[in-house]
């Protein structure tokens, strides 16, 4: 079966997105570590190469300076002027690392290394076999011009950039391979829903229209109850149909935002769900104050319908559904089954269902989240297992 892409089918479940993000974080982290390791190795190798080039010159200078120290040693007291050279600075230390004389600009010496770079100064430590003037260590110092460093950094950035791009390309390729099975399964499901949704419309409209025109007064009580149950079931299916239609078709439409009187809208929707709530013998508590919101009415209806239908569907028999409306907040609560704390994070995921006893595809709260995110409406969920759920929208 071929699977086509659409905006609706491109979305991944949050848990799947999390897996993908973790994979990418791990991958990017490892690539960064690899690049840093390569850069450090390359830089250190470049530095060693530069120092080995300097070593040849400094060795020669050390030989010359040792000869001068030897001469000074033999004529000491007659001559006390330390030999100087314009090509380098030098210092002499005894075998206890005490300074005898120094012309160095960087006085900290690492006697364990023959040659090293510190604070843009190259130090060369020569150990003498004969300690002229008590000199065990002759230290030569030259300035580092830093040209090699600039060259190395330029190469690191250039090669590092190329390697980075290569690994990012590879990462995107691997990520696509990683999510392909998930995406295929979601696309298949979406495609199936889209196809079947079209087939639901006509029979559903016929059922609801016929129930509407039936004369209940001439019916026996027993039949009237049966018809009410059929009506409630048809409303549930109708709600599902509207959600699916919204998912597959309507969310692509441009918004028609306007100021909406939420009290009026809530009263309409409560009336719509009245049959459904009566079928479950639910009572309704409302505390409505005048409130308005600027958004697309179709989308607000989807939000309210889904929250109300969940509050009804997952309620216990003879339970209560409550609605509290204030300017800036709308709370819909129930005395139903509630959800576990660890399930709260996933409750807005598409196709996520915690209770299989009720029908549906698990798309309702996903639509709610989708719309509230679009309008920057905050959702707060308070739920206690077997006691009920309270969902508050804040805008």
């Amino acid at each position: 079966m071929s699977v086509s892409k659409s905006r609706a089918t491109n979305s991944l479940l949050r848990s799947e997105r999390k897996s993908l993000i973790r994979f990418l974080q791990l991958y990017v982290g490892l690539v960064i570590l690899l690049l840093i390791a390569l850069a450090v190795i390359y830089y250190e190798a470049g530095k060693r190469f530069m120092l080995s080039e300097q070593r040849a010159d400094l060795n020669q200078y050390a030989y010359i300076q040792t000869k001068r120290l030897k001469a000074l040693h033999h004529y000491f007291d007659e001559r006390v002027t330390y030999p100087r050279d314009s090509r380098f600075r030098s210092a002499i230390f005894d075998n206890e690392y005490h300074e005898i004389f120094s012309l160095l600009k960087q006085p900290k010496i690492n006697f364990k290394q023959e040659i090293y770079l510190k604070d843009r100064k190259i130090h060369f430590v020569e150990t003498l076999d004969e300690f002229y003037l008590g000199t065990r260590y002759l230290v030569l110092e030259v300035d580092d011009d830093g040209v090699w460093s600039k060259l190395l950094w330029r190469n690191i950035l250039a090669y590092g950039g190329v390697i980075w791009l290569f690994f990012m390309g590879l990462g995107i390729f691997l990520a696509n391979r990683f999510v392909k099975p998930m995406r295929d399964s979601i696309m298949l499901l979406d495609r199936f829903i889209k196809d079947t949704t079209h087939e639901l419309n006509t029979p559903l409209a016929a059922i609801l229209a016929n129930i509407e025109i039936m004369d209940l007064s001439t019916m026996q009580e027993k039949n009237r109850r049966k018809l009410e149950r059929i009506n409630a079931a048809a409303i549930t299916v109708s709600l599902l149909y509207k959600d699916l239609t919204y998912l597959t078709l309507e969310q692509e439409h441009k918004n028609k935002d306007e100021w909406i009187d939420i009290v009026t809208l809530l009263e309409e929707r409560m009336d719509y769900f009245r049959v459904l709530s009566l079928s479950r013998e639910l009572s309704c508590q409302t505390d409505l104050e005048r409130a308005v919101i600027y958004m697309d009415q179709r989308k607000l209806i989807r939000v309210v319908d889904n929250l109300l239908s969940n509050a009804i569907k997952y309620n216990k028999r003879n339970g209560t559904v409550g609605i509290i409306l204030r300017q800036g907040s709308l709370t819909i609560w129930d005395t139903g089954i509630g959800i576990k704390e660890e399930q709260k994070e996933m409750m807005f995921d598409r196709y996520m269902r915690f209770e299989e006893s009720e029908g549906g595809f698990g798309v309702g709260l996903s639509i709610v989240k989708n719309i509230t995110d679009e309008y920057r409406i905050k959702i707060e969920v308070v739920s206690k297992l077997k006691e009920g759920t309270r969902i508050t929208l804040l805008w």
Partner: protein
Amino acid sequence: MVKIIIAVFTLTFFVWSDNAYERHCVSCHRELPTSLQRMFMYYLEIYSGEKSVKVALKRYMRNPFRDVSVMPELFLDTYGIKQPLKLDERELEEAIEIYWETYQVHGRLK
């Protein structure tokens, strides 16, 4: 009479002079062709640092052997090896300390 006075004066000077170094080192080394300064440089050339030099000097003063001497073969062949010093520990250390301070290179180079 004058000679006796000078001799007594000289003896008194050496016996009661200022420090152990003057009393026990300088007096004998006056007679040698190699100065104490040059000998010090031999020590520096072989032992380098202050502690090493002082330890080597002390060891040699107590046990002067040819194979541990810093002096050249020609010098040793001509003048031989000195006698072990019969100084107490404190006086020997004082003499070596003064010797080090007198000829050390630290701070004298310009």
